[in-house]
């Protein structure tokens, strides 16, 4: 390894941070309770993790043979552009399929039967608006 130690250190740190974020996104995908919560892990944490690893690669290959290596920016820019688009399409597909939208551990405000004597307590959250669009009746 003939790289300067500082650059090697930064590359190693970026690699570890990126891989850790990718793992956190996948843990979120595996462990979160409903689909719309699960969508958050891959679209944010994993994209950030891959971005950090691509930054590490750009830093590592810069100044190796052909000066600054910038084509990693191509992949990270593409991922940053496409991750919201694919998340949007996935959420629409889930609405169309009628995937259950809330899980039990989130505040179950509209459908819980009123506790006896607790009816005068103001609700903590406003009632949810009705769903619009194609999956509205199936998502219920």
């Amino acid at each position: 390894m003939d790289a300067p130690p500082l650059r090697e250190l930064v590359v190693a740190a970026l690699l570890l941070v990126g891989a850790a974020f990718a793992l956190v996104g996948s843990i979120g995908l595996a462990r979160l309770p409903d689909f719309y919560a699960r969508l958050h892990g891959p679209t944010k944490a994993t994209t950030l993790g891959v971005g950090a690893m691509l930054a590490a690669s750009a830093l590592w290959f810069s100044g190796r043979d052909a000066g600054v290596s910038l084509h990693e920016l191509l992949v990270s820019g593409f991922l940053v552009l496409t991750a919201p688009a694919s998340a949007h399409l996935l959420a629409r597909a889930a609405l169309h399929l009628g995937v259950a939208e809330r899980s039990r551990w989130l505040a179950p405000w509209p459908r819980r039967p009123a506790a006896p004597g607790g009816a005068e307590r103001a609700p903590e959250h406003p009632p949810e608006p009705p769903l619009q669009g194609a999956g509205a009746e199936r998502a219920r």
Partner: protein
Amino acid sequence: MTLLASAVAAALVLLAAALVLNAWRLVRGPSAADRIVALDTAYINTIALLVLLGIARDSALYFEAALLIALVGFVGTVALCKFVLRGDIVE
């Protein structure tokens, strides 16, 4: 073992664990949308894995594969979502 080599090894372990979790979600489901998200995450993790291998082997060839997977993976996600939404891919 140099610093970079050990960092690469640790990152490989983390990414392998991430891919195993994606595969678990892919098998487990329960809905088709969950499986599509699992595939989407798996291709993004594969990009990270290829970039990591490119650093480990010190070869720029892996990068081309990563770029191709980024392009084709997005098209695949869009195609699967279109299929779920419309029942058809090319209308």
